[in-house]
């Protein structure tokens, strides 16, 4: 933009100059026509009356001598042109004053350019004129022309007088005074020095560099380059600027910025004095800091940058040798651990070696061998499990990790218009007595890749009894009310009797077996364990990573090894997560922004998989919030959300509108209980205002300020802020509670929550979601209207799918109409995986579904980013 403006200015100046030189008529065409004319008239009168020995350029030359003598008298009269302009010599500025007070950046860029001519006869006085030609090095060029003219012979067609006149003309510089239309001539011998406009810019650049105002200095250099490319001294100033700026950045402890300046300087002038040394200093500092932070990828990145500039720099050689040494040490350590039967330790060591120095000899082979034995998957996430940052509800990270770590008796396997389940533990389950009883047969075998124990009937029955015991912390009211008998028929068979035929036995038994009495291990021996139904368990945690290992490692003699460990890396936002993926820090991202779906799909290095469950964004109200009990206020909030625009502009940020859609329920729009005929509520600020006014009168004439919490997600937070702005327009003041504010009381006293849900069994999950409870307990329904309470109970106790679907649709209609929650939109969920990952399923229901069977081709980023 700056260059464009400068060029435009330059073009404008050029045109103006060309117009002035070609015809005075063009200048008269300006808007100051009459004023200029009057000025010229005054100057002409002055010339006639006062001037001595001078003449306007338009008149005939007065005293070019026939011979080649220098026209000194004429020169003197030309100098008196100052006087012709009605000014005495004393009015002219001194060069010292001008240099002391250089034009500012704004003046140089804004005002018409002028040159300063230091006239020899005026004792350091300066004549300020419009830009003269030729330039730069005007005097030298004029001298060169004179010499060239003298060296030529007179042409036959040329008279002596004409040649003499040409020779005399070569000794004069044509100048225009600012605001004067007349052209004047100045003898070259009268000119002591010419400080061009461009030189003035360079002088200002010098001053700005000394002031460490590098941005303005750079702006001025760009303007100069646009005005006069290759102006003498401009490149030097640019180099000096870069060097000084690098120095300043280094002093300000910004070595990476310093390196960037130095790299730029290196590209412009590799031999700049002190550049190589400074490069070494800066890079050394950067690499040391990165190594100290354990970020070898970054260290190698800086090393790579320096090597690209100066391959034989001592710093390059020093660190290359250091990294190679460390890498080889780790390779030895990895070999040792492998021999000791510690595949995890070996894998961790070899991964670190590959991170530190991927070019180490023999690394690729060793890495491939060890990582094939113990595949470690690195996944990028925005939030780690168990870190809700004060957010009062369960965060998606908790669900993701729960599905990674826990194996439930029945697990969600796929989803289309209903949920489909599978079980790792049951070989078969057979309903009898018209569904009032179900006989379960537990599997007695386990594949080598499976990381689950073999359960016995007693384990399941113990777990059931815990869940049916009201005094137990895992008491499940729904389960306890449904099951009326448990009968163990054999160590691997048991039968459940139901009080009422359950709609989905699988959903009812979708819980893990937390503890057991005994475990049958691989060798068939009995032992004890507290971590049943866990396929992965947390093995280590740092500030930004959590590692999860298999609870049942694959045996050494397994032919093919599957993912043995998952390491989740936290990134601050989606951009950094994408960078981590591209750099090779991680091999998968558990969730993608819609706008990243297409670019990554087109990248041949990755698979982009859509998950079966979309993410639904919902606004929900706190059961204890008095204000939001007002139906009018809830409706006002709903009408004041421009869902269509927010979805397109903030959430999707892509033209692919198919990735998200407006919805009217908190469960997927593809679910058979979703009623597609329910009309979407529109965006109507006026109606929202009217409803807010009605709510205000209901609430005693004053709308209380609402407090809102939102899920810790960058997109969700942005949307929440936008909604708050719109609500303020209709008179509803909402404050977003800072989840990380550390005030637990403030975090609990919220009225509205913005959350995302992935609901696959609304018949079972709608109740706890509405009551913000982890369990579907009747007590938690107390805040709901009686009709809604009874309809939820009726839905929960439905025994056939037709009736439950009808009840769900009816409930869907009423919940939306009564605005008990505000479903916003649903967005398709995607996971991206590097192509070295194999055997993952199509349309998984969660990012890690079936991870026990995933294979990983050993891979590492051989090149530093």
């Amino acid at each position, binding site marked *: 933009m700056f260059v464009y403006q400068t060029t435009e200015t330059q073009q404008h100046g050029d045109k103006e100059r060309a117009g002035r030189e070609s015809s005075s008529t063009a200048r008269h065409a300006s808007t100051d026509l009459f004023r200029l004319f009057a000025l010229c008239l005054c100057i002409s009168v002055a010339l006639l009356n006062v001037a001595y020995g001078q003449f306007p350029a338009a008149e005939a030359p007065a005293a070019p001598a026939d011979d080649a003598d220098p026209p000194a008298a004429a020169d003197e009269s030309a100098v008196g042109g100052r006087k012709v302009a009605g000014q005495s010599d004393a009015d002219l500025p001194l060069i010292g004053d001008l240099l002391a007070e250089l034009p500012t950046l704004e003046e140089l860029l804004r005002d018409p350019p002028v040159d300063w001519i230091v006239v020899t006869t005026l004792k350091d006085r300066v004549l300020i004129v419009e830009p003269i030609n030729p330039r730069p090095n005007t005097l030298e060029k004029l001298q060169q022309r004179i010499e060239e003219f003298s060296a030529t012979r007179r042409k036959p067609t040329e008279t002596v007088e004409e040649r003499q006149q040409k020779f005399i003309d070569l000794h004069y510089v044509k100048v225009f005074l600012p605001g004067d239309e007349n052209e004047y001539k100045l003898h070259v011998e009268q000119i002591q020095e010419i400080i061009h406009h461009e030189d003035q810019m360079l002088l200002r650049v010098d001053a700005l560099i000394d002031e460490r105002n590098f941005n303005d200095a750079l702006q001025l250099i760009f303007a100069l380059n646009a005005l006069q490319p290759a102006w003498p001294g401009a490149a030097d100033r640019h180099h000096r600027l870069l060097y000084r700026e690098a120095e300043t950045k280094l002093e300000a402890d910004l070595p990476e910025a310093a390196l960037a300046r130095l790299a730029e300087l290196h590209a412009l002038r590799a031999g700049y004095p002190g550049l190589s040394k400074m490069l070494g200093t800066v890079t050394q500092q950067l690499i040391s800091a990165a190594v100290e932070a354990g970020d070898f990828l970054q260290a190698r990145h800086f090393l790579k940058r320096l090597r690209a500039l100066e391959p034989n720099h001592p710093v390059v050689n020093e660190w290359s040798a250091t990294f190679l040494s460390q890498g080889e040490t780790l390779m030895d350590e990895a070999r040792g651990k492998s021999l000791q039967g510690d595949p995890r330790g070996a894998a961790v060591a070899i991964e670190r070696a590959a991170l530190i120095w991927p070019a180490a000899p023999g690394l690729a082979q060793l890495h491939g061998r060890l990582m094939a034995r113990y595949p470690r998957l690195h996944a990028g996430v925005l939030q780690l499990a168990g870190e809700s940052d004060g957010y009062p509800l369960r965060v998606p990270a908790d669900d993701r990790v729960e599905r990674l770590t826990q194996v439930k008796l029945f697990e969600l396997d796929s989803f289309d218009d209903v949920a489909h389940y599978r079980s790792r533990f049951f070989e078969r389950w057979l309903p009898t007595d018209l569904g009032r009883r179900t006989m379960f047969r537990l599997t007695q075998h386990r594949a080598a890749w499976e990381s689950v124990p073999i359960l016995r009937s007693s384990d399941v029955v113990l777990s059931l009894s815990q869940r049916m015991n009201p005094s137990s912390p895992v008491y499940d009211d729904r389960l306890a009310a449904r099951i009326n008998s448990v009968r163990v028929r054999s160590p691997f068979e048991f039968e459940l009797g139901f009080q009422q035929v359950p709609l989905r036995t699988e959903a009812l038994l979708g819980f893990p077996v937390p503890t057991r009495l005994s475990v049958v291990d691989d060798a068939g021996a009995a032992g004890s364990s507290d971590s049943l139904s866990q396929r992965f368990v947390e093995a280590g945690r740092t500030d930004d990573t959590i590692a999860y290992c298999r609870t049942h490692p694959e045996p050494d003699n397994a032919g093919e090894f599957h993912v043995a460990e998952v390491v989740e890396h936290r990134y601050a936002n989606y951009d950094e997560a994408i960078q981590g993926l591209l750099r090779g820090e991680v091999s998968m991202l558990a969730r993608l922004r819609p706008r990243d779906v297409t670019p990554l799909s087109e990248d041949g290095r990755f698979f982009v998989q859509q998950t079966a469950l979309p993410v639904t964004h919902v606004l929900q109200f706190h059961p204890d919030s008095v204000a939001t009990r007002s139906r*009018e206020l809830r*409706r006002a909030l709903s009408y004041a959300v421009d869902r269509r625009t927010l979805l397109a502009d903030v959430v999707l940020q892509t033209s692919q509108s198919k990735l998200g859609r407006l919805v009217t329920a908190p469960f997927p729009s593809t679910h058979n209980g979703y009623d597609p005929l329910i009309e979407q509520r529109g965006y109507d600020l006026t109606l929202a205002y009217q409803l807010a006014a009605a709510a205000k009168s209901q609430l005693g004439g004053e709308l209380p300020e609402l407090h809102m919490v939102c899920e810790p997600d960058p997109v969700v937070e942005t949307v929440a802020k936008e909604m708050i702005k719109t609500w303020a327009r209709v008179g509803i003041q909402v404050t977003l509670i800072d989840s990380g504010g550390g005030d637990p009381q403030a975090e609990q006293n919220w009225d509205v929550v913005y959350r995302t849900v992935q609901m696959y069994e609304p018949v079972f999950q709608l109740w706890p979601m509405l009551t913000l409870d982890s369990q579907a307990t009747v007590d938690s*329904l107390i805040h709901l*209207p*009686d*009709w809604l309470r*009874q*309809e939820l109970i009726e839905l929960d106790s439905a025994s056939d799918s037709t009736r439950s679907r009808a009840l769900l649709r009816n409930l869907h209609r009423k919940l939306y*109409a009564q605005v008990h929650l505000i479903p916003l939109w649903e967005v398709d969920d995607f996971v991206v995986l590097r192509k070295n990952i194999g055997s993952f399923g199509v349309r998984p229901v969660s990012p890690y579904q079936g991870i026990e069977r995933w294979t990983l081709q050993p891979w590492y980023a051989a090149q530093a980013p």
Partner: protein
Amino acid sequence: MTHQSTSKQATLPPARRANAMAANSARRWGRSFAPLRVTRWLPTLLWILGCLFSSVAAADTDSPDDLPLESRRYQVLISISFGTDPTFTPRFQKQVADDIRLISDRTFYQMWNRRIERNLANSVTSQADLRRLEPDTVLSDHPELAVDKAFFTWVESAGSQYVVSVREWDAATRRLGAVFTRHTPVRSRVGDAAMRAISAAFRPLLSIEDVEEGAATLRLQAAAFPPSDPASAQLKPGDILQAFLRYRDLDGAVARIQSLPWTYLVVDNVERERVTCTVASGLRAPLGGGRRQRRVDLLALATHVAYDSTRLELVQRTNTSLPLVGHQVRVVSKLLPEREAPQPSDLFVTDRRGTVQLRTRADGKLVWLYVLSGDSLLARVPYVPGSDPSVTLSVPDDSIRLSVEGELELLQGDLVDLVAARAQHILRARHLAADDHWDQVDVEMAELEQLPDISHFRQRLSTIRVPALEAARADQNRLAESRIGKLCDQMSQLIQRYVDDDKIQAAKERIQELRPRPEDGRPR
């Protein structure tokens, strides 16, 4: 074997029956004494038993049915059974029986005509058996029980404690009381603990003589024989009685006995045999007012608080297998809801089995239970928490009304939207008219015309009201019918009030008045 003998005894005259019982008892005692050289002790034992049962048989003749109730002493049988603890020697058992006899005489004196038997209740071999005991079982196992009260007593040891459990059987109402348990660590005080349990389990019997305007006058059995210990008076003000109807056939035999549900008599005053009570009942005329039937006896039995809590189960009246989940039960501590100021209450919600746990009050007083479905009162009954382990209350079905309430909520929501939208269009139209933007005024007015009118809402109301009323009539649920009608009427008034088309018409006319006339271009 024992059952066969007992059934034979039922056909014998009383005197011979007593002798037979004595013989049976002797046989049982003989078995107990077998390890202790029976032959040595048997003559002495038979002599003691003979004396004992002779006195019991003689006492039977002291309680003729034709005596007034207050002059009739309680014919009491105390049956003692012992656990299998080897320390429960015959000597110890005899000592316990002797202690009970002594203390009961000292406490109740002539009020009780008491006899004591050991191991009469063969089916009771544990405390759990005592709890499982059913009235029918008692009648079938002991048809010979010609007593007013029988106390089945079970003595066992638990660790360092001796545990005595007692359950009372009332012959008049054929009801078993709760199990009362007392503990003592002292072996010699087992008899005392047993007597304390028996005293606690004892429920006085009364005859309801007169009922008038929520007050009842009763006569107390054996009131003419006050206990020697004044603290053991049968009744005191504040005690709670439960009423029973005893139907007799033409021969005067008891045909059936029915307890009056959700009806209690709270003792106000006791003057010898005359007891006055306040009647608290969930029924409109629980005791039939002043009219009495000849072959129906109105009885009352004291109610004891014997449990920590009572499990109240709510079921639907028309389908008692269907528990009512998520219904509110408000528990108010007061005697008569009509006469007392509102009291603080506890609110419970029935769980998935339709139950709530009612905690026993420290003072053991009566509370009122309000079963609510939203704002609708489904039932209002008195109850004494802790008097039963569980109790079931059937209430009318309210699902139809709730469904109507939900639909009306939707209708009301749409009504609010309509009112807001109308106000919005009229406001805009007024502003536009004031600015002479008549084209846009016409647009606003056209949009106003497009909004639903009053007939639309009335039609929707009809589609809610008619099917619901038909369903309520089909269920013969008059309460629901009435409430649905009331709800729909209220909604109809709201519609009339807020969607009145006349108001719209008036607004239109006001805007129309601002429109310039074609002839002069000025507003009218």
